[in-house]
């Protein structure tokens, strides 16, 4: 977001800066389209690179991402709130450390294990995506709640606010920026992991990439890779705009 | 005095050779329409402490920082020991000057010894010489040699400031620049540091440019004071004496504030006046010896010292008769001033003392003598020659001030 606004300088309205990224992404898609349509595609490529197939992959990817992100946000934010309450203080620092190390888990490994234990398909891929994005969002929520200035909380309690009131009216609003950053991270991570969902039969844009690599068809590969990247960057941009809009004024 | 008129010039009369000369210095910061410093010319005499003092925003710090070109002047020239240093390599120039700032800026990741050794190492001194110098400086700033291997975070504010000064003097530069060096310290430690610094300067006689916003500190520390108005316009550049007795304009008067005349007492130190002596005895001599001493002296009380000759308690004959141990007889001696303290401080202490007197001690805290109101009054009278001998002159001067 800051790049966009920095690039526009002083004379243009701020919202113009926000448009830089989506415009670039749109141009990339356009370039891809023109390049592909100018090629001679063989039968395999044609099967992969038609509107119907691409759209289906897109939808699969989005479904996975949306479902997983909603689930992760609900679960991880709740867990984050609970774990930052005083009664959980001893457990929470251990958990933050675990959450940090957990980032080293290979996403493809987690997915593979789930497939082995449970089976292939959408629902198991979903579990994998949730599991993988859980720790980062949890950590961000905990960090965000912890860094709320304790003197602000004390002031709230001193004015007679109940613990719940303090939580909902002071802590959570002040932690929103960091939580939003965590949600944004979750989205990006999930889109990335969902790319691998193809390996356990859940489809998604990763299927294009996989086919392109295994069958050695560069157009398919490039299309899949570019579309996936564009999707990830677009969603990230969208989340960034939301972050800016939803940030409480005065922070 | 000051040659003001329309030019902004500060030249000291009857002063030694100028160590630093500033010629038409100006500074306008980019993006600002008003200049921060305008056409300042000044000579800073060798071996003196020149204090820049003025209200916030008058440009005093900016001016000082132009001397070592931390802030580069927009126009004008700087001369160090007669050499034009306006355009020379700035890093090399700064190694010839010591620089002490308010927040000190000790390097937290280096030991105290390494901190002090910074400039000598840069200048290529050999290790033994550097190490000896570090020890020498630690002693100079009254810190134990064991601090060599400690880290800044282990030191108190006052200790850090001492190390800051030691570090600035490490390569023995002829010039020291100090920007509110005692500003961030508590008043008690600050006074002690000021006294120690003045003692030090009496020995080493460096040329020092000292910036402060506190007129009392300026009066205490400065050999010469430059009172600056906005854009560093010199209101008066003179000795503290002359500024206090003869302020150049209303700005200076207002800046000195009420009690200018009393402030002149800050200029005399206790060591300058004759202290009286009082019967003293060492605690360990025992009550008999003390009683004997009291009888012989004819005074109604005796001052008790410890084995290092530091004043501890006052005892009267009555106390001796009734008390058990001599250590608990009488009352503790608290009205104590160092010989470097000003008469102002002494009066302040005496007003709250029990007997209307103060005990004078040396730098180690050892007994030197006592002063009372009479002694101080005598000293004050000696300071009023102008008013005493020519009352019309004194009245005339006051009238002139009211008019301007």
């Amino acid at each position, binding site marked *: 977001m*800051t*790049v966009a606004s*920095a690039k526009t300088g002083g004379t243009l309205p701020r919202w113009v800066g926000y448009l830089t990224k989506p415009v670039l992404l749109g141009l990339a898609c356009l370039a891809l389209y023109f390049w592909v349509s100018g090629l001679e595609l063989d039968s395999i490529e044609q099967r992969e690179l038609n509107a119907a197939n691409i759209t289906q992959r897109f939808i699969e990817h989005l479904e996975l991402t949306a479902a997983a992100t909603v689930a992760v946000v609900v679960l991880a934010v709740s867990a984050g709130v609970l774990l930052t309450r005083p009664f959980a203080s001893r457990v929470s620092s251990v958990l933050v450390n675990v959450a940090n*190390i957990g*980032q*080293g*888990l*290979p*996403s*493809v*490994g*987690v997915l*593979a*294990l789930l*497939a*082995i*234990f449970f089976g*292939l398909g959408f629902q198991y891929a979903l579990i994998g995506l949730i599991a993988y994005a859980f720790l980062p969002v949890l950590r961000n929520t905990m960090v965000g709640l912890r860094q709320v200035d304790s003197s602000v909380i004390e002031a709230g309690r001193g004015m007679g606010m109940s613990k719940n009131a303090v939580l909902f009216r002071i802590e959570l609003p002040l932690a929103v920026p960091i939580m939003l950053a965590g949600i944004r991270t979750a989205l*990006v991570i999930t889109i*990335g*992991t969902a*790319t*691998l969902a193809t*390996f*356990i039969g859940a489809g998604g844009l*990763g299927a294009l*990439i996989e086919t*392109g*690599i295994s069958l050695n068809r560069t157009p398919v*590969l*490039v299309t*899949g*890779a*570019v579309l*996936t*990247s564009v999707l*990830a*960057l677009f969603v*990230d941009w969208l989340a960034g705009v939301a972050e800016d809009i939803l940030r409480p004024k005065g922070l | 005095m000051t040659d003001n008129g329309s030019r902004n010039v500060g030249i000291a009369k009857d002063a030694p050779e100028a160590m630093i000369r500033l010629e038409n210095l100006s500074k306008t910061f980019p993006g600002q329409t008003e200049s921060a410093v305008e056409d300042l010319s000044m000579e800073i005499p060798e071996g003196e402490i020149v204090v820049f003092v003025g209200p916030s925003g008058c440009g005093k710090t900016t001016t000082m920082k132009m001397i070592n070109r*931390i802030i580069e002047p927009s126009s004008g020239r700087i001369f160090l020991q007669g050499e034009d240093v306006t355009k020379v390599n700035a*890093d*090399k*120039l*700064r190694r*010839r000057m010591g*620089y002490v*700032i*308010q*927040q000190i*800026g*000790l*390097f*937290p*990741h*280096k030991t105290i010894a390494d901190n002090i050794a*910074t*400039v000598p190492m840069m200048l290529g001194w050999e290790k033994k010489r550097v190490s000896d110098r570090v020890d020498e400086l630690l002693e100079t700033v009254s810190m134990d040699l064991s601090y060599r291997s400690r880290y*800044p*975070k282990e030191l108190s504010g006052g200790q850090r400031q001492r190390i800051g000064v030691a570090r600035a003097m490490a390569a023995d530069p002829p010039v020291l*620049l100090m920007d509110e060096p005692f500003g961030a310290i508590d008043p008690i430690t600050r006074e002690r540091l000021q006294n120690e610094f003045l003692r030090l300067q009496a020995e080493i006689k460096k040329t020092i440019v000292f910036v402060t916003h506190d007129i009392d500190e300026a009066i205490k520390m400065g050999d010469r004071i430059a009172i600056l108005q906005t854009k560093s316009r010199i209101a008066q550049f003179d000795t503290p004496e002359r500024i206090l007795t003869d302020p150049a304009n209303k700005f200076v008067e207002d800046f000195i504030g009420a009690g200018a005349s009393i402030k002149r007492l800050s200029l005399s130190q206790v060591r300058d006046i004759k202290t009286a002596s009082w019967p003293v005895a060492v605690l360990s001599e025992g009550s008999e010896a003390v009683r004997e001493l009291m009888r012989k002296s004819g005074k109604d009380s005796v001052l008790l010292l410890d084995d290092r000759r530091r004043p501890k308690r006052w005892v009267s004959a009555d106390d001796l008769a009734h008390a058990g141990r001599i250590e608990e007889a009488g009352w503790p001696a608290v009205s104590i001033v160092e010989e470097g303290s000003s008469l102002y401080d002494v009066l302040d202490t005496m007003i709250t003392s029990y007997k209307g007197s103060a005990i004078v001690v040396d730098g180690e805290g050892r007994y030197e003598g006592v002063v009372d109101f009479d002694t101080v009054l005598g000293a004050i009278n000696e300071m009023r020659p102008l008013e005493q001998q020519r009352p019309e002159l004194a009245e005339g001067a006051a009238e002139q001030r009211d008019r301007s």
Partner: protein
Amino acid sequence: MGFLRYLASRWEHLLELAIAHAGVVFLSLLIATVIGVTAGVLVYRRERSAEVVLAVTSTFLTIPSFALFGLLLPVFGLGWTPTVFALVVYALLPIVRNTIVGLRSVDPAITESAQGMGMSRWRRLFEIELPLAWPVILTGVRVSTLIIVGIAAIAAYVNGPGLGEDIFQGISRIGSATALNLVLGAVLAIVLLALIFDGFFALLGKLTTSRGLHDR
């Protein structure tokens, strides 16, 4: 066969893969640290340039790793080269960001007193600013390490080195008995590698940070 027996019989193979995995991670970290710290040093004083650099590196991190590997394939082919390239790209953001944050957080009073003593720009950077920013920079390297240890597993799909090989083998054999052993063995080895790397950097941090900076 049981997992433990599997481990016993195939541990040499796992070790070989683990060493390759560690090797490619370490090499990429080294390159990323050099590039990242240099970039951070160059831009930390300029607001605009810093923003551009941070935006570009964070864009890299947003691109799904599988997609990036796919894009690099036509350019670099298979094997070590695309792997190292991709890992370096992913490791850049935390390092650059932490270098910038770390350098900017040095107390201005310290740099001013250093400047006032006549320290040249280079000296100030290497003797004062970088040592003081070092703990923060090292944290950035640690974070990057954890990120790319996991991503390196995906590289196996483009014939990159490392434990990912076993994971993909296991995937291709889902349903058979060996799949679990293959995947589990590789995943555990990767987690272990992550722990070892993290411990290594924690130790490095303790050893290379001046005592004067500890426990703030």
